[in-house]
């Protein structure tokens, strides 16, 4: 629980679960869950690498590099915006088609 590898492995597992959800699920909300899980895997990687591989070393150990955390703050805000838009689309699709199964939403097929 104290080396960079542990956190990167957890991130890999979360990403794999997200891919599994994207492949198998057809419910729009489950797809949103899968995407959120994958975004969190990426965020975890950002923070882990930023904290374990700082840019320079100081007198009292490695100097912190806040760049990874900064990126994650931006990423979380973007993910929140994305979730809001997706949920609005889900509600509209439900009103129009009375369904949340993405394979039933055929009106947008080319």
């Amino acid at each position, binding site marked *: *629980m104290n*080396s960079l*590898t*542990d956190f*990167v492995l*957890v991130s*890999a*597992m*979360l*990403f*794999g*679960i997200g*891919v*599994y*959800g994207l*492949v*198998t*699920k*057809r*419910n729009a*909300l489950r797809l949103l*869950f*899968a995407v*959120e*899980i994958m975004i*969190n895997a990426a965020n*975890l990687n950002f*923070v882990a690498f930023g*904290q*374990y*591989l*700082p840019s320079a070393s*100081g007198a009292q*150990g*490695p100097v*912190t*590099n*806040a*760049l990874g*955390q*900064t990126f994650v*703050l*931006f990423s*979380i*805000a*973007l*993910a*929140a915006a*994305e*979730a*809001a*838009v997706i949920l*609005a689309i*889900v*509600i*509209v699709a*439900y*009103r129009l088609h*009375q369904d*949340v199964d993405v394979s039933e939403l055929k009106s947008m097929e080319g």
Partner: protein
Amino acid sequence: MMVVTVGSAIVALEADEIIYGAIGLAGSLFGVATLFFLLNAPYVAVFQIAVYIGAVAVLILFTVMLVRQEKWAKEVPARSLTRIAGVATGLAITLSLALAVVDTNLSQFTTLANNATFVDIGVLISTGDAPILEVLALVLAAAVVGAMTLARADREEKPQ
């Protein structure tokens, strides 16, 4: 904590009732937040809890309640071929990533950097990354306004 994170992520996707799935997702996000705490990044952890568990999870719960229950209940189980393909893809990606990570010398990094103060992050955001912050504000505003317009225009077309 890692077990909680990964376990609730699986629950989020596999729970029978979608409301339990939403709660599982919230648990997984909370697990990631505690991992941020362990990584000496308390500011990001608090931000994660505030935004994800405070806003996104509540938003999802409201959507689940707005859509009638039977629509979620009739969720068709994926065909077994799709399921096998999904499990295989997920496992393949996880295993290849894990093998690639284990193959490197990342495990030699065991020292955490000093705790970044709020001032460090704030300086970074407001100096070098200031244009990103501005664009992000515009994107957020556009997304929220777009979401509200989507949900509202439809109601005018189809009065109940």
